[in-house]
């Protein structure tokens, strides 16, 4: 059992992390809330027909209109030109609205706790899929309004929507997450698939980890940071890139501190600013140490300017890869850059 003091540190750090992510949380919530209101209005407008419409006109016009405007007649002017919806479609809207309402509540937490011994990737995947219900609901709404919602085919949209099914625009709206985990469970290698669009993950390991768990997540378009200073998390506010940050719960000699900012330049050593790369001696012994050696080697290589032919500077090749259009996948780009810097997978 952690002591109370430790608990306080953990709570404080996760509050700091949530605060740093506030704008991203707020913009996700704003999108959900706006959609919820639009859908609710639509449901209200559609349900019940004439008598209800009159009541709606009465309410929407407000007290000023009482005695001055005939609500029944005014209702007949509302909604002219609208296309009608089937009861089934309205039902879908209604269900979607409830999903959106739940996710738009200010009390929705963006903090995920990984069970001791649990899989970090699975926890993030599940949390994103839960938030993905907002996108699923929105899609269901669009299909229903277009008269194209087939319960068999699209019913699942009202459940969880896994991240891999999110489209580009949805990924740009992605909600951020703060993930709390035991230090030894902090194995983020599998998180790369989620680092797209506007995703931002802040990892809060409790206790020692390997020295640079995030080293493998560095790709040219990803903001990656390891630090023990909670203030550094505010840098997440300035980046327009997918981001992952790791905030250590205390300063330990074997931890690497660095920031990889995609806006820093065209080559890895310009983008990577290193505060500290521990020496291999700092790592101690054992399995964790050997994994650490690898991570640190990786980091060091990236931080060292290449010479001569190895320079992968802003060549035409980079241009053409980026030029492939928005579809050019980050993975391809990463693979290519890794190959150029001799840092590819073993």
């Amino acid at each position, binding site marked *: 059992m952690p002591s109370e003091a430790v608990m306080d540190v953990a709570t404080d750090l996760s509050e700091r992390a949530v605060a740093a992510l506030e704008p991203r949380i707020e913009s996700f919530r704003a*999108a959900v*809330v706006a959609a919820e*209101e*639009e859908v609710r209005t639509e449901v209200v407008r559609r349900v019940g027909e004439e008598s209800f419409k009159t009541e709606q006109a009465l309410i929407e016009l407000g007290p000023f209109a009482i005695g001055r405007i005939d609500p029944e007649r005014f209702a007949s002017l509302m909604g002219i030109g609208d296309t009608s919806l089937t009861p089934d479609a309205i039902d879908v809207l209604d269900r979607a609205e409830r999903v959106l309402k739940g996710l738009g509540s*200010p009390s929705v937490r963006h903090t995920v706790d990984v069970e001791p011994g649990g899989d970090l990737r699975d926890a993030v995947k599940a949390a994103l899929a839960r938030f993905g219900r907002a996108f699923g609901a929105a899609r269901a709404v669009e299909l229903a309004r277009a008269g194209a919602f087939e319960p068999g085919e699209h019913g699942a949209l009202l459940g969880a929507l896994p991240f891999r099914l999110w489209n580009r*625009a*949805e990924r740009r*709206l992605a909600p951020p997450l703060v993930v709390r985990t035991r230090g030894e469970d902090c194995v983020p290698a599998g998180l790369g698939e989620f680092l797209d669009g506007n995703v931002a993950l802040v990892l809060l390991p409790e206790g020692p980890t390997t020295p640079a768990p995030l080293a493998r997540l560095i790709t040219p378009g990803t903001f990656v940071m390891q630090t023990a200073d909670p203030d550094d998390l505010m840098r997440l506010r300035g980046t327009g890139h997918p981001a992952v940050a790791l905030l250590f719960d205390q300063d330990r000699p074997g931890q690497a501190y660095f920031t990889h900012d995609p806006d820093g330049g065209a080559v890895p050593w310009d983008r990577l600013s290193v505060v500290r790369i521990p020496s291999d001696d700092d790592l101690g012994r054992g399995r964790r140490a050997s994994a650490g050696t690898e991570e640190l080697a990786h980091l060091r290589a990236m931080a060292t300017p290449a010479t001569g032919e190895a320079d992968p500077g802003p060549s035409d090749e980079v241009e053409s890869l980026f030029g492939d259009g928005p*579809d050019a996948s980050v993975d391809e780009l990463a693979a290519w850059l890794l190959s150029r810097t001799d840092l590819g997978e073993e």
Partner: protein
Amino acid sequence: MSGESCGLLHAARDDDRVFDRVDYEGPVARWCSGCGDHSVLSAAQRLLAEKQLAPENTVFVSGIGCSSRFPHYMKTYGFHGIHGRALTIATGVKLTRPELDVFVVMGDGDCISIGAGHWVHAVRYNVDMVALLLDNEIYGLTKKQTSPTTPQGYKSNTQPRGSYLPAMNPLEATLGITNASFVAQTAEWIPAHLFATLKAAYEHSGFAFVRILQRCPHFTADIFGEAAKQPDRVEILEGPGGIRVEALDAIYKNKVEHDSSDLAHARALAQDMTAIRLGIFFEDESRPRYEETRSIPQHSAHEKMELLEKEFERYAV
């Protein structure tokens, strides 16, 4: 300028459409043949295709004048407003829907004369949009009246003995406005340069002001019509932060070295109106953008009502 959709329902409609130039083409443009507007229209359509902008998320706003018919020839959303006021409408659009891509098309009378007050302030607001000044140095739609940029001594129907005063210098004026963040000049008769300039303007984050020198075949054929035949008169700005169009090297040999972050040099270069200097005069993306400073988190109707109840507490008796 970057088009980021912020709506959830909108995101749900995101599809894998691929747009071609024809996807942005509206009805056939009915400007005179030889009019520079055609060239700008085609460059804009090419830009939209290159940037794959969704037509429904793109708005062209214009005022009144020949060039202000522009939105009608685009297959996007458009707002053909009133004389001189396009920038105010565009500001309203962008303040409330920052995710839309907004282009403003104005003529010289529209922007520099009747709309001058809005021009000055729009530059200062630095709202993220592309503003195109299609400058043919004359009022064309109403048939040859002097505009503020008409060269001194140039005869028109309103000043038949020649324009009385030195012409206004839109570049110099814009560069003098506090918080200007992007000022460029290009010419419609050099399509490659026009396109590269529009692209840079679109990619700029903030208010991108582009003056496009433009031929009017009817009323000022002897101004830019002549210049278009004399590549020697053109000077291309090159240097850090500038645009580089290699294909033009063979024809346009006069180069001026210029760093687009150097405002003093930009102003010096802009002063001489006899030279036809094309390129990015100034760019600074760090200038504050009004719509960013005014960006406000949204609340649901119920949250707003709770807040309003609190507000009423202050007035309760």
